[in-house]
């Protein structure tokens, strides 16, 4: 290839040389420049003069045909052009899209040869018409929904445990995706039969997996390599949690105040304090210490005080609880 090319250049030069008819020196100079320009035009692959090219037997360079968007009728079946996810092909998409940064106050580049359009994922294969067709085609694979399950509440009532996992599809040498093994198991604790102690123990056992707002316990398992194994493990965990929370161990009696979830007023420093204050205030006159305490506890304002303190401690500080505490304190201390 290079040998014939240099031969061409030399003969072109020879043709040019007598035509110019200048002095030898300048002639050679123009010979050289003519060579350069011809080589540059040859490299840029134009077709300068058809006859000259034909003389040296070089075949015409192949030119690209027109894009097939010109032949597409307006009412064609688009799902046939893009049946599946394929990269953007500018000569198959009859839309005048432009994409890219407008350099120097220009316009975004056109779609032909535009890498930006090819890089991004496109959904040309999922037009609404195509999706309808796919749904129609997939209907034979589906079975009827049970008619009794007509609302979410019914579904929750009969099928409280919900299992979720994801399948992944991608183009590559391997079909496997390690994220496909993850299994999420969700269940509402209200649908499990738990008494008070069991509930509290369950909450302690699961910790962060429980969402208080929605009352849903979520168990996510991904430690096994296969999805079936993870599913079995999740079900096993649910079973074990349930049974364990019903059991009462001996050491649970050693629960300290710091372990308790809720604040209980009985036996707390607050109770001791208010009783001491009331005793000193000599609200109740007779009786010895224990009887006086019991009578004090039964009094209404003390009960109100108790409620307000419990509310403050359990719910946290907000406007209404502070107000309630203020009222209760005023009543108890007779202010």
């Amino acid at each position, binding site marked *: 290839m290079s040998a014939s090319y240099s031969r061409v250049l030399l003969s072109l030069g020879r043709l040019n040389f007598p035509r110019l008819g200048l002095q030898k020196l300048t002639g050679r100079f123009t010979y050289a420049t003519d060579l350069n320009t011809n080589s540059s035009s040859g490299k840029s692959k134009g*077709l300068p003069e*058809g006859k000259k090219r*034909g003389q040296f037997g070089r075949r*015409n360079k*192949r*030119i*690209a*045909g*027109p894009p*097939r968007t010109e*032949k*597409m*009728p307006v009412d*064609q*079946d688009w*799902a*046939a*052009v893009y*049946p599946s996810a394929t990269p953007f*092909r500018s*000569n*198959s998409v009859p839309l005048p899209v432009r994409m890219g940064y407008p350099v120097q106050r220009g316009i975004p580049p056109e779609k032909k040869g535009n890498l930006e359009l090819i890089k991004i994922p496109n959904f040309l294969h999922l037009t609404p018409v195509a999706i309808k*067709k*796919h749904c*129609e*085609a*997939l209907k034979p*694979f*589906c*079975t*009827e929904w*049970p*008619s*009794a*399950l007509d609302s979410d509440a*019914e*579904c929750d*009532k*009969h*099928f*409280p*445990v*919900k*299992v*979720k*996992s*994801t*399948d992944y599809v991608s183009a590559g*040498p*391997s*079909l*496997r995706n390690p994220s496909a093994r993850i299994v999420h198991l969700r269940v509402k604790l209200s*649908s*499990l*039969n738990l008494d008070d102690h069991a509930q509290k123990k369950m909450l302690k056992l699961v910790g962060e997996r429980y969402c208080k707002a929605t009352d849903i316990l979520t168990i996510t398992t991904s430690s096994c390599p296969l*999805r079936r194994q993870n*599913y079995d493990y999740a*079900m096993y965990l649910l*079973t074990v949690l*349930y049974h364990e929370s019903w059991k009462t161990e001996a050491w649970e009696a050693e629960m300290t105040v710091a372990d308790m979830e809720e604040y209980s007023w009985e036996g707390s420093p607050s109770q001791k304090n208010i009783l001491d204050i009331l005793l000193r205030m000599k609200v109740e006159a007779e009786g010895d210490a224990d009887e006086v305490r019991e009578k004090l506890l039964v009094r209404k304002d003390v009960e109100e005080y108790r409620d307000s303190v419990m509310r403050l401690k359990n719910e946290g500080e907000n406007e209404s609880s502070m107000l309630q505490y203020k009222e209760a304190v005023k009543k108890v201390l007779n202010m």
Partner: protein
Amino acid sequence: MLQSGQECLVNIELPYTLGFGWTPVLRQQAAETSKESTESIVIPTKKTWNKEAVLQALASSVSRDPTAYPYQFQDDPYLTPRSYAEFQLFSLSQESGRATAKYIVNSNPKFFTKDFAEPHIPCLMPETVLLRLEEVTEEALKERISLRKVKAAVDMYDQLLQSGTAVSKETIHDLLDLICFYCDKDPVQEEAPELADTVRDELKRRKGRFRRASELLKLTWKENNSAERIFNLLPERDARCYSALIRGMVKHGAYAKAFNMYTDLLNNKLTADVHTFNALISAVTGVRETYNERWALITELLNQMTQQKVRPNLLTFNSVLKVLRYYGYFSKTQALQTLNEMKAIGIAPSLATFDHICAAFYKSVSSGSSNSDILQEVMTELAGRSFTCQDPDDVLFFSSAMKICLNGKDLELGYTVQSLVEVGENWKLLGDSYQQSIYYGRFFTLLCMMEHIDVVLKWYRWIIPSLYYPSSLGMSDLLQALDTDSRLDLLPTIWKDIRSLGHDNKPDLVEMLLGLMARDSHSPEVQESFALCALDVKTVVDEKPRFVWSALSLSYITTLLLRANRTEEAWKMLQLFKSNNRVPSEGLLGNFLSVCHSEGSSQKAIELVQLSATLCLSATGKLAKQALADFKLTEKQRAILFDLETTGEPSE
């Protein structure tokens, strides 16, 4: 697990939903009743399907895209083939690339040990093509047979015989099958580089159309080759050995020998199997000359078949019908009789059967109607059915059917055949790309002949160029159809297609196109588009160094340019006449002169007359006279014209 015996638990059942991401994990029991609901919840049983069912269902919702390029090529206007020659070149080069890659992978397995694909794809990993066992054992022989190494297997067998080891019957059968199938030569892939050279030499010698490489490399059964030698050395020969030899002989052209072998078999009181009989029936044409003799031999073979209680199959009947095709006078009756027998036994006919029957009824082009009748009946029988390929000759059915339709000029029947092709997977039975191009070529010719231009154009857009690259004959048929229905305004678009198909180097086609454009004058827009098209023709054709301009083409172009009032370019065309040594017609020059008159350029008129004088045209005198009469001329111009007139006159 959980549910039995735990009454404190509510049903832990899992819902069966087919939403995105929810796994349908389900027991197989049908009905699970809950405790306090009013109606029972019936959970349907899960449907199962095989691995590709979902993909196949989705694929069935997709139809064909008529503007798409053939699927094996890149979807790019630069990289797809635009003519039939390019299509062949590109697809062959793709195949050869794949074959080369496979060859390299198989011959260097040490570089391709890592398996990237999950799950394992066996065809991407190197196959064992190299022999592992070297000792003289039967195992080594079996290995060579399974790797299709004919010569090595024969050598190994000889060595085994010499060493006295006994070889089992199955291995001998396999060995004989191997040798007879490949005609004692190693299969082509083994010796790829050398054979490619021989193929190229063959191709150079035989310039004609070659459809299959196997036609070039037809092997012939040699006298006393390894198969016969081994066969003769066998202590006992059973029917299977005979069958292998007979079929090999028939396959490679030694018909007489095959029949001798068959008589041997009969003498040894063995029964042949159905494949042997099929081979013998197809060999009948090679051993008998006249039709009567052939038919007698066939009937004899068939009788022997029934005597030996061998049940015929589809290929038997197809071979019989293949011989009957050319039987002549009796072919029709015999063919129908064969078909009835086939149905009586219960073998369903395939497309090849029908092809042979239609050919048996087909007499000649002249008596068109009687041919189509049988095809009509065949099509009514086949309507709506889908077929699979059961006989190698099935692929010839559609092209012959379309030939009958074309010769009988029966458009309706042509449509019926096309609708059968469009059923299901029947398009696969159109054969390779060559057969397909024949079929569509005939269909398109039929349409151009008989159908209204709108329908023709609809089909044109549907099958070209995604299914069929028309030849120049097809394009000229289309041009004639356009002419018949006076849709000549579409000619410029057709010219674009002709260009992209690569037919723009055919002078006849170009001349026809230009002639149609130049024949009548049309409305101004159409005229303008014709003029542009003519200019395009000129530029395109100029780039082809070997194109020879004809006088007619040049005059057509000039006429078109004149009609669109492009006088400058028309003037340039006149110069071309001289440089190509062609003579313009008188009418053209007269035309030109009148245009010059309407433009009022007298200098041009003078030049025109001078041009005609240099070309020594007889019309020079008349032109000069007309120019003198019509134009306002200076003295000098008058003088020139007088000269020309006088010089022109004596030559008349």
